[in-house]
């Protein structure tokens, strides 16, 4: 606990860098949240981006976005253009079919999201994250003390912002990793919230127990003791979860890769935050109260 100032500084620094990246570079919203049409195409051999861009530009889709999806031969084409039914998707495909040799690609997936749906999904995602934080705050506050709930939720903010920052920084760095903000990614964030609070609660549980045993100790001593008591469990559990996440990341295929990546970052940060942030906030809060 003595090192908490250093940890605050370290966390803040990384989060600030992440936030800077968020403001400057932003995150890549997927089709779910933007609305528009998206195609995932599988080419028999690595396509020329320039050529694809030229073809689509010629067909009046100059504003469309082209990027690789999971591997070099898989391409994601996206436009925010709206049209009746699947007309946009059909037009995109027709344009490519007309100019490329026959059978050079295959449509793996096509999505069309109307403008309304995109907006609703954005809203739902916001509600979901806020609701989960509130629910956790309430649960922890009821089971423990209100200040514990605040500590847990601050730790969660920390985890979410940290992970979001990392995602913003790493997005587009490698085609292997698709870090778009999709519905799955939101699911990853919510799961991250659940898992991270899981660690925090285990530490809190031990603090509650130890504070009954060592009545004469200061809160800081009890916290140190509790964190040490639960440290091996925290590491083992995070370790097993990390194992399965790494499996998902490397074996799970391109569709869940971004999801697995966000969770992998999240679980590491979450483990750290439940030790250094959640309890530290509770401690600082109680120290401040004692001073008053």
């Amino acid at each position, binding site marked *: 606990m003595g090192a908490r100032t250093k940890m605050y500084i370290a966390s803040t620094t990384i989060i600030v860098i992440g936030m800077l990246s968020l403001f400057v570079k932003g995150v890549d919203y997927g089709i779910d949240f933007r609305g528009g049409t998206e195609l995932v195409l599988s080419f028999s051999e690595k396509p020329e981006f320039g050529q694809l861009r030229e073809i689509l530009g010629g067909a009046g889709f100059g504003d469309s976005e082209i990027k690789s999806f999971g591997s070099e031969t898989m391409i994601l084409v996206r436009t925010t253009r709206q049209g009746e*039914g*699947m007309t946009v998707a*059909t037009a995109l495909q027709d344009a490519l079919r007309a100019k490329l040799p026959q059978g050079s690609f*295959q449509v*793996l*997936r*096509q*999505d*069309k*999201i*109307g*403008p*309304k*749906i995109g*907006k*609703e*999904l954005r809203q*739902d*995602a916001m*509600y*979901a994250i806020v*609701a989960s934080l509130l*629910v*956790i705050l309430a*649960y922890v506050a009821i089971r423990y003390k209100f200040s514990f709930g605040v500590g847990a939720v601050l730790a969660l903010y920390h985890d979410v912002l940290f992970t979001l920052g990392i995602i913003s920084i790493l997005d587009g760095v490698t085609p292997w990793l698709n870090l778009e903000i999709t*519905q*799955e990614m*939101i*699911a990853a964030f*919510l*799961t991250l919230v*659940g*898992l991270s*609070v*899981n*660690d925090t*609660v*285990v530490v*809190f*549980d*031990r603090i509650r127990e130890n504070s009954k045993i060592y009545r004469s100790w200061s809160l800081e001593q009890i916290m140190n003791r509790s964190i040490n*008591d*639960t440290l091996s*469990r925290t590491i*083992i*559990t995070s*370790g*097993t*979860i990390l*194992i*399965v*996440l790494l*499996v998902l990341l490397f*074996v*799970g*295929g391109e*569709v*869940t890769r971004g*999801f*697995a990546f966000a969770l992998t970052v999240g679980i590491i940060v979450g483990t750290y935050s439940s030790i250094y942030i959640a309890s530290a906030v509770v401690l600082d809060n109680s120290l401040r109260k004692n001073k008053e």
Partner: protein
Amino acid sequence: MRNQFSKIFLILAAVVVSFIFLYPTYEDYQFRKNLASRSGQDSIAYLEQHQEDILNAKLKRIKLGLDLQGGMRVVLEVDVIQLLEDIAKNKDDNFFAIVKEVREQSRTTDESVIPVFGTKFQDRGIRMSRYFGNIRDADNTILSYLNDETEKAVDRAIEIVRNRVDQYRVSEPNIQKQGSRRIIVELPGVKDEREVQSLLQGTAKLEFRLLRDPAISYRIMQSIDDYLSGKVPSDTAAGSKTAKKEEKPKDALDDLLAGNKPAATDTTQEAKFLREHPFFSYVSPDQQNTGEGYVLETNRDRVIRLLARPDVRRLLPVDFEFLWSARPDATPDGKKFYRLYAVKRVPELTGGVIIDARASVDPNDNRPIVNMEMNAEGSREWARITGANVNKRIAIALDNAVFSAPTVINKIIGGRSQITGLESPNEARLLEIVLRAGALPAPVSIIEQRSVGPSLGEDSIRAGLNSTMWAVILTVLFMLFYYHSAGAMADVALVFNILFLLGVMAGFSATLTLPGIAGIVLTLGIAVDANVLINERVREELAGGKTLRAAIDAGYERAFSAILDSNVTTFLTGVVLYQFGSGPVQGFALTLMIGIVASMFSAIVITRVIFNIMLDKGLTPNFG
């Protein structure tokens, strides 16, 4: 020890129930495998033989989401503005100006359209009764009337879509209402977007078709039967066709009848009948001389294919067509069958003439009825038609599926008809929807459409299975390595956990999606947490000098509150996710929640029982 028995019983019960739930999934897998290994004739024969079992297994297995099996998901929304425009009368420039404004505004806000519409009228000081309802109606009355109309339009749209999807013969379609005016349509395995689009969006076609005379209907069925059995057909044109059939012995007919077509040596009664009456074996003409044919649900596809054959079609007279009933009826012993109606090819009247249709109750005998009203032009035609066809039946067909075929009792003048003899209020309501579908289109627009190609689905399944396998292997090894025999126990719990998780999913007929598989994998990582908490605690207690048994008791007891709290918080985020997420993400939330509950049971109860048994037998579990 007594406590122990009840726990063992509980575990066994859970295991048995899981296996029972999972059995159809296993069966389904076996059927698929067997089918894939057979070819042509053989596979059809196999299909025949196990038809009911296959259907049953399909219904109860764990379903695969569209992202895994490929297919299309379409979200339709009833275009309220279009609907308002359609039902308004005396439309003038003011009206169109308002419609245009509302349309503009609805692009940017999600507010319900109708109140916005109402406000616009108020702003301009125009009473809505100018365009809707009665001249004396207050605006509020009209607004609630419009709301009502919108809801009915959604029901109509659902009925139209269901009817068409049903005829398009998609296997296991899922059609459901979302919110107040959206329809989700999920069509597994469908690839042709354009076709589906026209299927979902085209205008519904409601027709009144005169039924052919029962005698003619029966004669045609007889001639098809004769033709198919190889007897000399009564029809003039069919002679050459028979010859053609003999030229190509591997005709489609053989394929169709394969498996059920008995060898010539088979002398049982049924086999003989099937050989001599290939058509009547599947279509039984109504004994009461209505001219209808009854076809068991399981035979419907076969009969459809039979009737679609060009040579069979040539046996039909020019003004003759078979139409199917839209829904199956059930016999008292629960068998479902469809009716085959023989109708005239040219409709007597189309649905555009219907002004209104309402389900109601006959005041005399409280039986459900439907009142139908036609416009002037329709009424004239209707009087002529009904007058000329008293005591004959007229089929009401929506997109070529017959919903009802009432008998004309007398000549109907004035366009107000009453349809009686309906079996239930539900049937009346359905008929109301169908009749109005012809009159008032339910304009829908596609607001979301996702399609996944089958190859991506296959890749996803493979990736999902691989990652599950690796996750299990690595977790099991890690626990063994770190906790020795106590780790082995956690591993046993893990296996049970997977079994329960899948069992519960099958029990709920839940849909497995790719994020759902990710949820299972993640559950594997989380599931051992409870055992880690317990084992760590036991180690501590051992280090504190307790005996093994006391340490285990204390470990389980003290770890419980932490296990409970940590699982509840994760579970709660799962609930939130399920509430707000859609489709695949809900699949993830579901597996996560089930996994958490299953893991608490298996990690706490099962491992404890094993420890106790070991201790009773004098074995000493090792906590590493």
